[in-house]
């Protein structure tokens, strides 16, 4: 089957928790090989959207396709095609670096002969080759975060979802992490990354600004800034977009 042109496509996606609408009519498409940024304050609905796209939550209405598979109907196929890294860097603290890699390699079904090769790649990528036997609990935040990313891409997924991967780590570790994202995109992966750091928007090919469950602006960072006027920053774009949104839906 030839890969469909869009890696991720949603149409009128809605998620309700009781009366609360966490995701409200989100429609977007992410192209293959793109670094797509999901920006917005905490509680804007970024994580909920990502979790729907990863097959972890059922949408209340609308459609979403990941790698050509419908997330509500064929979540198993979706899970085969993605790597997901949640906010909490969910690794096992009482396992060593190598054991965590081995475990995730196993649950992603990486073939035994390929697993060694992939493990070496991840260790090198995360800069953890010298600490392969170290207990994960003893790693500093930045290392843990890179290990979590490495564990999520052991099976070479075409699409990677990163939910606020850089929250809570120091600026240098953040910078290094973005280098890894570029490396993955250069290798042909699609990266869907959420963040609440405005300056990180500049690292993305395209961004969606999310506010109260809605996408209020969508486009390349430079385009969005220019549309707002000369010298406008990403913050200005966000503020202006929110003001327009409030005027439309008070």
């Amino acid at each position, binding site marked *: 089957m030839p890969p469909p042109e869009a890696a991720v496509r949603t149409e009128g996606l809605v998620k309700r928790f009781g009366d609360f609408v966490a995701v409200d009519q989100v429609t977007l498409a992410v192209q293959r090989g793109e670094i797509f940024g999901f920006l917005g304050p905490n509680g804007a609905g970024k994580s909920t959207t990502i979790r729907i796209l990863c097959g*972890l939550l059922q949408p209340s209405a609308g459609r979403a396709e990941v790698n050509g598979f419908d997330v509500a109907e064929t979540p198993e196929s979706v899970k085969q095609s993605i790597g997901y890294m949640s906010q909490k860097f969910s690794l096992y603290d*009482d396992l060593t670096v190598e054991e965590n890699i*081995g475990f995730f*390699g*196993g649950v*992603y079904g990486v073939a035994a002969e390929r697993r060694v090769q992939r493990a070496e790649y991840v260790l090198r990528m995360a800069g953890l080759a010298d600490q392969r036997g170290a207990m994960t609990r003893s790693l500093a935040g930045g290392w843990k975060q890179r290990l979590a990313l490495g564990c*999520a891409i052991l099976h070479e997924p075409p699409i990677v979802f990163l939910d606020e991967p850089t929250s809570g780590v120091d600026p240098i570790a953040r910078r290094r992490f973005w280098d890894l994202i570029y490396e993955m995109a250069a290798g042909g992966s699609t990266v869907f990354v959420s963040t609440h750091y405005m300056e990180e928007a500049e690292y993305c090919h395209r961004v969606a600004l999310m506010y109260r469950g809605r996408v209020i602006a969508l486009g390349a960072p430079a385009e969005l800034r220019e549309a707002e006027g000369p010298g406008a920053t990403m913050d200005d774009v966000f503020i202006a977009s929110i003001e327009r949104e409030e005027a439309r839906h008070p």
Partner: protein
Amino acid sequence: MSLRRLGAIFRKEGLHILRDPRSLAAALLVPVVMLLLFGYALTLDVDRVPTAIHDLDRSPASRALIERFRGSRYFTVIQQEGGYAAIEEGIDRSRLLLGVVIPENFSEHLARGEEARVQLLLDGSDSNTAALAAGYAESLVLAYSADRRDAALRARGMKELEMPLDARVRVLYNHELKSKNFIIPGLIAVILMIISALLTSLTIAREWETGTMEQLLSTPVRPAELLLGKLMAYFVLGMADMAVALVLGLGLFGVPLNGSFWLLVFFSALFLFGALCWGILISTVARSQLLAFQASMVSSFLPAFLLSGFMYAIENMPLIVQQVTRIVPARYFVTALQGIFLKGVGMEVLWKEALFLFIYAGLVFTLAARKMRQKIA
């Protein structure tokens, strides 16, 4: 079902177990402590009843009766002085369980062929023990009386009287009637139930609490694989516990294993699997480790202890409670254990127990897997 994913879960879970020395020690020490505690301290046998004898007659006849009490393994005569007051005080202070009073005219009555009376004073606070002690004392006095009568008849040159009825008791299994032979096999059921429900109940709740569950759910791992992989790891630990209990039971307490060793292993494996599934089910329902711990304690320990027939005979329970015991898996396992250990019976007798345990394990596993899937969606 993918073996690769199953193997990964199994290995990871095994590492968790090995990396947590406190839980591991608890898992292996609980059976030892429970066996020692129950094996030594808890005995339902009544023997060496502390007895005081107040002999007012002081005749050869009364001394002969006292000798019988001294000679019996059921009684230990610890006091012969002090009279009624001393017996009462002894019972009040729980030093004595039985007081035997031989009245002044005991030998006179006997000599004249009149009814001679012996008074038995009992501490009835533990009614079970008191009833058993009273029974032993009565039959001792009765045997003495029969011997006296026979001796008297012989003295007059008459033939001994045949008893119209004579019950010949032959105990078929556990012929020494030792309660430990009965308790220790049952205890194995309780130990396995507690250990398995306790350990597994935390395993899924912990993954929810640390957030690793979310990561797992984003991978292609299926709920059944996750459950089975975890079960397998704890299964190994549970069988190790079984081995510890078996070595102690056979070696230290000398409980006989009359039946097949492999049948014992088969039943233990079957029961263990069901008990582990129960723990997992609790773990999927309860999201916090604390709640899971409490729920597993109440739902595994209490029924296994009270309703399995391990301590309290099911036949003596009220009818409704008897019906409730039918859904307690430990009940079937206790029956199987006692059958294998003491009676040496095989599958031809125990197939019903095996069938129940099999259905139970399958049902709980399916339920846990379904619950898990619901929770994911």
